[in-house]
Every structure is written in structure tokens, then in C-alpha cells.
């Protein structure tokens, strides 16, 4: 879509990125180790998020011949991020389709095919490029079922990497959770772990509504333990249900996508440093949003912090704070807080980029402030 994709050769992009050592990513790995302890049963295997997504796609293509994948580079090249690796060879070119570089074209084709009864999975190379197609996603995908009086379903999945990556600057580093999360008629999921990724993507494909799957590029290569059950082809993660990743009693940290790993790491530091037990909630779905799980947690901890890497204004964290006023006001011992990305188009320079997004230290610091530690 944009020239940037062509004028930056792959080699250049790599050189440019080499010096980038992403600190938060290291902390995310640490949190992973913490979590792994919980998996004791045999049969658990490590999966990268990429492998989990790939398996989900393969299983759903296998299960339902109405499912097909379309996007730029998804077939011959196995996907810009290799999420669709091997699928062209296995399922053929009628079901794994390389599209011309035209987001509204293939998103629109997908919507049309869904209106005609197929279950397309439309891959955007990144959600940044999907802005070209947003009319198709919202005005056609999300609204047709309602406007047709319920006779015209649109079972389509839009997926791709969302949020900031490293060293790719403002036009490739934006979180769209709040954008799509505000649209009636869409469902929006934001997987963090490999199990989230597989279970939510499969649930999205089987869902009769249009579902937006906001993956995270920085998580693609990260390995997570996958339970034996989750390795099966019928494993689904219900859309609209949050998951308590860490049980705690002193403060509730509600977060999504990659920030879940960071929040888990922050929670361990809080325990070591202050003896505080933070409860970490992985939203998993932005729409519908699981207010119930958050409310239950806040009733117990009486403190709430919402964490996201999106922009501060009108964001997911803002929404959670608004909900806290409506549903949790009487249970809060102090004003709920939010930790978000900075109000700035994401800069390229590594120092600036690092300052643009919340990291584990910030989460620890803000939590300690909130609890007056």
C-alpha cells in the first residue's frame, strides 16, 4: 500500500533495526518463565504465537471448506510474518490467495464473499494499512447484519499485527483496539499468549459475526507453553471473556495484548519489592469487554489500574476507567489510574520510542504511587 513497504528493502530494514534492543521485550520473557511454573502437566509444549496462529488457520481451513485466506503475500511468500506458512502448499491457491496491493479491494472482496456465505480470513500485513479499508470493515462488515434486519450475516475475520513494533516509526506503530472497539457490530480480540492466539483466532473464524483479531508483531516470535488441550483442534477461547493471569488481593491491573506480559513481570517486582499481590487480568477481548471479571476483581482489591500501549485519549484504558465509575465506584479506595502510550506519533529513534510506551518500571512505579507504598 504505502511506498515505505517498497523503498525499505528487507536488508535495509534489518540493518536499521539491529541496534534496537527492546527492553520491555526482555521483561516479557521473564514473565513467561514465571508463568511456565504453572504448567506442570505432561503434554504441554512450547509454541510461538506465530505457530499457534498458523495451527489455528490450518485447522480451520481443514475443518470448514468455506474458510479461505486472502491478503498481501499470504500465499507464495507464506505471509509477511510467516503466519500463513505452508498453507498455500497444503490448501491450494483457491483458498490461500495473494491479493493485489489494495486493502479496500481485498477487504471488500472478503466482505462480499462473507455476504455470499463464505468465511473469509482477511490478513492485513499490519493493521496500520487497514485504514485504507476501514470503510469496508465498519460500514459494510460491521453494519450489514443489523441493517439487513438480521437476514444477511457477515461471517468474516480480519487479522494482522497491531500496535507498535520496533523501529518502524509512526505510520507502522499504532494500536487500533480503541478504534474497532468502539464499533457496534464488530467483535474485537487481542491475544497475548500462544493459547490466546490459537483459541481466539479459531473462535473468531467460527463466529458468525465480523471479528477483528489484533495480534502483536513483537509477540509473534515469543514462545509460550501450550497445554495438551489447547493443542487439540477443537480448542476455542470464548470471545468476551477475560482471563485472570495472576491472582492477587491488593490491586487489579487490567491490560491486554503484549502489556499482559509486562504487567505480570511488574507484578512479580511489586511482590518482591513491596510484598504487594497484584491481580493481573488479561482482557483477551476488547469487544465485548468483560466488565464482570474486572468488577469482581476490584471488589476484592479496591484498586484499579488499566494498562495499554495505545494512545491515552479515548482509549481502552479510558473506557475501563469510565466503566469503573459506572460499576465499581463504591468499591474503589482511590481513584482508578491508567498507564498508556504517550500522546505522540510513535518516533523512530530508539530512545524516543522507548519513552513512548509503558514499561515494567513505569507500571511498578505507578502502582506503588497508587497504593502509597
Amino acid at each position, binding site marked *: 500500500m504505502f511506498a515505505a*513497504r*517498497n*523503498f*525499505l*528493502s*528487507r536488508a535495509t530494514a534489518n540493518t536499521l*533495526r539491529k541496534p534496537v534492543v527492546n527492553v520491555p521485550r526482555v521483561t516479557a520473557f521473564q514473565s513467561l518463565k514465571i508463568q511456565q511454573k504453572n504448567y506442570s502437566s505432561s503434554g504441554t509444549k512450547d509454541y*510461538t504465537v*506465530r505457530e499457534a496462529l498458523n495451527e489455528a488457520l490450518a485447522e480451520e481451513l481443514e475443518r470448514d471448506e468455506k474458510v479461505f485466506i486472502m491478503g*498481501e*503475500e499470504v*500465499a*507464495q*511468500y507464506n505471509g*509477511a*510474518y*510467516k503466519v500463513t506458512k505452508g498453507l498455500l502448499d497444503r490448501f491450494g*491457491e483457491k483458498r490461500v*490467495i*495473494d491479493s*493485489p*496491493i*489494495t486493502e*479496500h*479491494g*481485498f477487504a*471488500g*472482496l472478503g*466482505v*462480499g*464473499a462473507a*455476504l*455470499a*456465505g*463464505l468465511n*473469509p480470513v482477511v490478513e492485513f500485513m499490519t493493521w496500520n494499512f487497514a485504514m485504507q479499508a476501514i470503510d*469496508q470493515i465498519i*460500514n*459494510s462488515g460491521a453494519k*450489514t*447484519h*443489523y*441493517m*439487513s*434486519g*438480521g*437476514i*444477511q450475516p457477515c461471517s468474516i475475520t480480519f487479522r494482522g499485527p497491531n500496535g507498535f*513494533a*520496533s523501529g518502524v516509526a509512526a505510520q*507502522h506503530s499504532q494500536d487500533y483496539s480503541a478504534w474497532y472497539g468502539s464499533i457496534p*457490530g464488530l*467483535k474485537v480480540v487481542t491475544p497475548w499468549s500462544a493459547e490466546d492466539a490459537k483459541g481466539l483466532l479459531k473462535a473468531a473464524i467460527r463466529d458468525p*459475526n465480523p471479528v477483528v483479531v489484533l495480534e502483536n*508483531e*513483537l509477540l*509473534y*516470535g515469543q514462545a509460550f507453553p501450550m497445554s495438551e488441550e489447547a493443542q487439540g483442534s477443537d480448542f476455542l477461547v470464548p470471545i*468476551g471473556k477475560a482471563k485472570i493471569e495472576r491472582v492477587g488481593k491488593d490491586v487489579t491491573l487490567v491490560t491486554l495484548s503484549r502489556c499482559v506480559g509486562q504487567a505480570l513481570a511488574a507484578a512479580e517486582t511489586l511482590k518482591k519489592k513491596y510484598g504487594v499481590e497484584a491481580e493481573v487480568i488479561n482482557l483477551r477481548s476488547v469487544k*465485548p469487554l468483560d466488565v464482570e471479571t474486572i468488577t469482581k476483581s476490584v471488589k476484592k482489591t479496591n484498586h484499579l489500574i488499566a494498562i495499554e500501549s495505545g494512545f491515552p485519549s479515548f482509549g481502552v484504558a479510558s473506557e475501563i476507567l469510565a466503566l469503573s465509575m459506572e460499576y465499581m465506584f463504591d468499591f474503589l479506595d482511590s481513584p482508578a489510574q491508567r498507564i498508556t502510550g504517550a500522546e505522540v506519533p510513535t518516533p523512530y529513534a530508539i530512545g524516543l520510542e522507548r519513552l513512548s510506551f509503558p514499561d515494567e518500571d513505569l507500571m511498578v512505579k505507578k502502582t506503588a504511587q497508587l497504593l502509597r507504598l
Partner: protein
Amino acid sequence: MVLLAPLRASARVGVSRTRLPPPPLSAARYFASSVIARQSAPVKQRLHSDSVLFPGAVNSKFTNELKFQRPQDLPAIPTYRLIDTHGEVVDKSREPDVSQELALKMYKDMVTTSIMDLLMYESQRQGRISFYMVSAGEEGIAVGSAAALSPDDVIFSQYREQGVMMYRGFTLDEFMNQLFANKFDYGKGRNMPVHYMSEKLHIHPISSPLATQIPHSVGAAYALRLDQSSRIVVCFFGEGAASEGDFHAALNIAATRSCPVVFICRNNGFAISTPTLEQYKGDGIASRGVGYGIDTVRVDGNDIMAVREVTMRAREMALKEQKPVLVEAMSYRVSHHSTSDDSFAYRAKVEVEDWKHRDNPITRMRKWLECKSWWSGDQDQELRTQVRKDILKAFARAEKEKKPALENLFLDMYKIPGRDLEEQMAELRRIIEEYPDEYDLEAFDRGKEGL
């Protein structure tokens, strides 16, 4: 995907797709992937060859003459017609192949559409509906093309194709139910007037944002292709919509994915207020079809028989050869764009009156029918009186009908309503039961029970 497909066998070049070693699976982004993935093996070039097989233009010959292609040097694509403005068949050996019965149905559907448009336009002016769009001047394109299709072909239309629906059997009651958003409206009152749909007639709901239906039609055609169906998709749009990105994206994908879809562009001379001369510089919309590698024809949209013949041929090609076809049907938008528009702000009334008298699909067909002695002035008067009566009856029925049931407040945003909506529904029911005197539910289907 098919960049290398058109290579001629005679060129005797071996092309194989070499796979590069997979890139490192870090969190990297592979910007230049498309270039890399489709690199082919070195192409052998014949000595003194008059061309090189550039993958982007395999049939291009070398030339020593430096010459820019000037659009004005190319002849404009001709406009096909069978019947002239006097209602006479131009080439006597090519009498339209149509029975009297079918011809009269087509004529009556055009007349009914035009009278309905007139009455509904007036009703909007009286404040009885919020909005309306008439199709005056373009009835021939709608009815003529509909008459060429198989009844189960799938249709994606814009908002000026009342004639298509009329021909397919959308009843006057169905039109009126939508316009008055009563309980029989398929859209349950959620769409603007004229955004019709019919599941039974395979007509998809009309989408307001311009041109979005064009990629949809390609997707639906792709579904039919996968199904090896004997049906095709037909997509209508105006020449103004063809300026939207969706048009270009859709034609390009339809061509590259070989989708059985017939695109019918109604070129009526105006994109709301902007005349075509300011809308585009090239030879209409037809020239773009050629540019995308799509078989294209231009037809006189005021000649309903020509529209029918062209569409029949286009349908056959789309189906048999499994590929898209573009039809550009020329006409003149006699009407204002919509009830929100007064076109005399940007065009002279006399110009419109001129067109009305000079040429019109309805009068042209009537002249032809009278030439053949299939129709008379008396019959015409009788038809118009009857149609008017029928429309007003349907109008009155629809206006009196109840509104959709209350439960529809909560339905259809998702296939299965969420728990929050169920709770809200229960809450509304409770409130209504507690304060029955505060809520007059007479106007709604099934009253309180509709919840």
C-alpha cells in the same frame, strides 16, 4: 499471483518460481517481500528478438519511435444500439429477439418505476418519508439489464436500480413497506428509504457509501466460482462511484482472480452536481475496463433492447469464461440526484427539458412498440391510470401498517444478542409492565407482546 501466467508457449522460456531461504523469524517486517517472492529464473532471450518478456508487459514490442500515447488520438469506444430515437430498428436485419409478452412486461415495469418515482418524490416533499431517489431517465438500463439475467443471478445495486427490482418481482407493497419502515420492511426500519433488499430475489441490501458494493460483488462472484455455480453476480454503480478507490480495487481483483461478475455502470452525466467532464478526463468508464484487462462494451442506455442484448452476451461470457465483463450504459439523469438536491442550481432547466423531449428510454420503447403495433396510445393511458391507482393503494396500506415489534430494538447487532442486551430487554419489559399507562404501544407490531 498470475504475473507470469500470460507467457506465450512459443516464447520457449523456462520460468520457475525459485524459493528463497526463509527470512529470519524475528520480529522483523519484510517490506520488499513481493519483489523477492516472485523472482523468476533468468529468462532466455532470442537473438534479435523484437521484444523482451518484461513480466509487467509480456506482449510489448520494441520501437525506435519515441511517442507518447495521447488519449485524444485514440477513437472513443463506440456506443452500441439497436433502436434509434424514433423507435426504429437501425439495422433491419437485427430486429430485437423478444416476444410481445416480454417486451410489454419490460415497458410496463419502466412505466411503473417512473410513476412510483414521481409519487414517492412528491410524498417526500409532503414530509411523509424522509428521503427518496428517483431514477428518471435510467429506467431502461435497470429494466433492460434485469431482463437479460437469470432470476437467481446475484445482484448488488447502488440506489437507482428500482427498475431491476421491479422486473424481478419486488412488489409495490414491498417497495412501500421499505419506504415507510413498517413491520414488513425487511430492514426493520434501519435503512434510509430506497435502500431495498430482497433475499428471495437475490438482491443484496443497498449500501450507502458509494462503490462499496463493487468489491462485495467480486467477493460474491468468487464464492460462486469456488462453488462452480451456473449463476453470476451483477453489480450496478454510477460513473461518479467509479471515481472511488473501491471501483479500481474491485475491477483489478475481479480481473486477476477471474471472477464471474458483470459490472454495469450507469453513466448518467452527473455525480450529484459534478458533470462527467469534471469527473474524469478519459473516454468514460469503459476505457478503464480495457485498462484492467476486462472485456468491455458501451451501450446506449436509452435503448432498452440494446441494454438487454448486451447484458445477455456479457452474462454468457462471464459465466462460460469465468471472468468479469464491464458494461457502460450511457444515459442522462433527468432527475435531481436525490430529494436532498436541486439540480437546477448547477444545470439549466431547459437542458433537462431538452433531454426529456429528445430522448428517453420509455418514449423510445413506446415508439418502437407502436411501430410494431404492439401498443397504442389508449392502452398507454389505461396502463398509467391503473399503475397510479395500484401504487397509491400500496402506499396507503404501507403507511397504515404497524411499526416493527419492540424486540427489534435489541436484535441483529450480533447474530446472537449479548447478555447485556438481554438484560436491557428484560428491564424494558419490566418498566413497561410496571407503568403500562405511560407507554402507548399501539403503533408497534404485537404491542407489549412484541418484546
